[in-house]
């Protein structure tokens, strides 16, 4: 197994990696209702390294302090969906290691990419018809007394003003 894929698997375990809509962009991996995100490695760093070198990962980590497989990855979605996506991404990197380079921002600084241009913004989530004091209801009693009763009671009225 490619060592990069192995390092990715260490993040996500051995879940089944069947995610048909897997998509890799600089800083983002999406698919299966989950998202993985990590900061990209600055274009200036990519300009200084030889991406074809067998020592690429070591150079990035030790010389530039920018590990190719990031130490922390932001995960959005249920635990199962995230694990599947992670495994699918590791499988994809196993097959095509340049996907990891893309995830980490390689090619972003190319003359062809425009740092001022963005993509299509996602639509805002639908408005939930939830009573205003749902969060205090979820929190339950705090055991913290205020002049207006338990803290959660004092705050329930505040939530109605939002």
């Amino acid at each position, binding site marked *: 197994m490619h060592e990069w894929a192995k390092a990715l698997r260490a993040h996500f375990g051995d879940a089944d990696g069947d995610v048909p809509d897997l998509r890799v962009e600089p800083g983002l991996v999406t698919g299966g209702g989950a998202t993985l995100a990590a900061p990209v490695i600055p274009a200036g760093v990519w300009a200084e390294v030889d991406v074809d070198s067998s020592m690429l990962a070591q150079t990035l980590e030790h010389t530039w302090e920018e590990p190719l497989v990031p130490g922390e990855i932001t995960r959005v979605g249920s635990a199962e969906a995230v694990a599947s996506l992670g495994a699918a991404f590791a499988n994809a990197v196993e097959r095509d290691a340049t996907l990891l380079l893309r995830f980490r921002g390689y090619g972003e600084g190319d003359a062809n990419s425009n740092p001022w*241009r963005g993509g299509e913004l996602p639509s805002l989530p639908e408005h939930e018809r939830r009573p205003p004091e749902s969060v205090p209801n979820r929190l339950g009693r705090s055991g913290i007394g205020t002049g207006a009763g338990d803290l959660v009671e004092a705050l329930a009225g505040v939530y109605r003003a939002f």
Partner: protein
Amino acid sequence: MLEAIWHPEAYVFAFSRDGSYAGDETLDVLGDEYHGRFLTVDEFCGWEPDEELADSARSLLHVRELARRAVSEGLVFPQLEEIGGDWFAFWGAMLEPKIETTLVATAAAAPPVIADYFHGDRVAVVNDLYPRLVDRIARDRLVAAGVSLGSSRTFGRGRAVEAFVHGLTSAEPELPHGASYRTLAKKIERWVDEGLSRIVAAPWGLGLHLEERAGYWVLQLWLHAEDDPTVALPASLLWSAGADAFDFLRDTDVHADVRRHWADLGPRLREHGYAFDEERPDEVELDREDTSYFLRRVLPELTIPVALPTAWTTRPARISADLEARATQGYFANFDWNLRVDDVGLDVDELRKLASQRHPVLEAGGRWQAVRREDVQRALAFLERSHSGSLIDLVRAVSGLETDDFGLQVGRVALDEKLSGLLDDDAKFKPLPTPQGMEFDLFRFQESGHGWLRMLGDLGIGMVLADDMGLGKTVQAIATLVSEREQFGRGAFGPTLVVCPLSVARQWVKEIERFAPGLRVHLHHGKERLHAREFAEVARASDVVVTSYDMATRDLDDLQLIEWDRILIDEAQDVKNPQTRRARSLRLLRSRRRVAMTGTPIENHLGELWAIMDFLNPGLLGSREWFHRAFAEPIQLDDDREALERLKGIVQPFILRRTKDDPQVELDLPPITVMKDYCRLTVEQAALYQQTVDLWLPKVEAHEDRFGRRGAVLAMLGQLKQVCNHPEMLLHEGGPLEGRSGKLERLVELLLMVPPQDKSLVFTQYVRFGALVPYLAEKLGKRVEFFHGSLNAAQREELLREFASPEGPQVLVVSLRAGGRGLNLPAANHVFHFDRWWNPAVEQQATDRAHRLGQEKPVFVHSLITEGTLEERIDQLLESKRELVAKVLAATGEDWLGDLDLGALREAVALAPDAYEQEAAA
């Protein structure tokens, strides 16, 4: 095209690449410098640009829109955070999956330029920006809606949590210093983490809510979480919007729960004629008759949660108690209480019926009203109480204290003529003439006081004679002792015990001997004093026994041998702290009645009024804790005028206070002139002052607990005051005194200006001033003596006698603690406050040593204040508090200084740059 990027220093930089967007600020973006505008989070929240937006600006505004939406849905939680030693109340952003996904997708769609200051990490940009926007938007909405919780004060019970909720609803999140937030922060973090990290797995049950609308009622079906019935949502929400809102709160199959419970409840409601929809039950309308049927017949049978209209429960009907009181033998009164809600009377039977209901409701004032069950039960207990009492009970009843204890409000009050007269202010002042056996002619106002002391005294009521210093409280008390013996015969009364400060004990004896030679007086003091049986025999054969507070504490066993007719405590503020051994000892003495004399019933806080009143009339003001909650805290901390008026109404029949300015007091005292004399520090004083500040401030800051901190503050202030007096008072080096203190030199100048035939008093709170006395005497060429606490009674008496004679010392330095009260020193007409006590009441008492009956010359009072130091600043603070002091309410002691917050403290002790004599420095 308008670009916008987010900067880690918490601002948005708005600019255009072609320079068309005007702005004075510049920022390097992707290696080029652009002109534009920095927008704070606050400004960005209201930013509505007209220009065409580039992708970067659209991305940031998209995050803003998401934040607005999340706040509208209440997806926020309270957060208490420490940043750099300061504490903040934030609204945290709740990252629901749909929010987080949208944020990450927004980051992915944003152009790389937005993360130019975040190492290209666009997710980091939105993660940094979003919570700041959420907090600001939440805060702005609450402020706009006028929502305000808690209090910004950082003292009193629950101060941290009150300051925290106040911070959440304030425009800015920073919390005031002075409260201990750390423990609260941990509790809040644990509560929020646990609440948000999991959804409780518990089923929904059913409940009914009755709602009042315009002219009709609606009975609604609700779902209540079975583990916590306070968590409830209307069934209509389930039918109209689906299960999302329910699934957010409980991990269960809500539809299955409803089906199961409705199978049981539905048929029962149908039997009573309530036609809910079978498939999707939500609500039915009720007319007045249906509602009445529901409340009387259906409601008592139901075991599910039922909510009555919010207006009923949030403002439950108060039960009023009407009082009719009639005087009986000996000024005792019979009380007849009638309870009602609006116009509907409640007798015991009706109350019992209400008490048996789960939701007590009655129809009164033309509408349905809920009553709290505990109120009904307390009302029943109230009716079982005694229906007669003394004047004290009457005052408590009329003022609402009796009813307060039972959650009732006092309604209509009808008193017969005799009782009305007792509570009438004017009744106090029916004068009684000077008794025959007295060698002194009472002034007219003293005759009124004499009449008042007799009237309440004959009823066995405790009272406070709180006339200003110098108005002759002692002669009024002596007149009372004489006149009651003249009226009822000497044998009708046991002895009166006068307890007073040692410094005035002999004065008491002398005044009795002088003004009422017929009274037998015994001084219980000194090594030769009597004990046990010998004491008891002499005491019983006396009309008055005079002793000091110390002796009364020490010889409690002896004093307890006597059943005193009256205990009279002079300078009653000495018992203001009920926890002291002194105060506790006095309470152990048996007496038929009690009188307190003081010029200042409140020096520091209202708790002192409670202590004195509770000694005189136990129970009048309730327990100490209750009094604190009901009066002291609202009046002193919240300036609650209503509570103040109520308290005045309660204590007013038991306090007689006249000031020298009262029109009825025709004393003809000579005029008094009060001056502030400013002086400056020497270079040595300034250096020492600064060293002291530098030494203590870090210690003050290091204390987290209030008491340790207060101790450090008071220690620092004490040292600074001594530096202002003279460096030698702090250093004790035994060096020369001349030229080292601007204040001492100023005092010498002022004393030299006193005419040779006049005498002066110099008040200080530091016994170490004694070291300066010989220097003063030498500089003035006059005899200067020092009256302080280490003198024994005989030495004090001798010194006072000497000072009173024209040949005696011309300047008397008096330690405030030893001689600030009770002494009669009209021989002096110049008063100097060398250092400030920072309690106007104490200074006033000291001044009154000279400005009192017997004073024939104009009196001049000088307060010495060192410029540019804490003395000047605290003086300014005191001036601002003088109005309160005048109301005898919240005169301030020195302890309040210990509670100043750090900012105010730094400001108070900071040495002004021009505070010392530059010439001397040069």
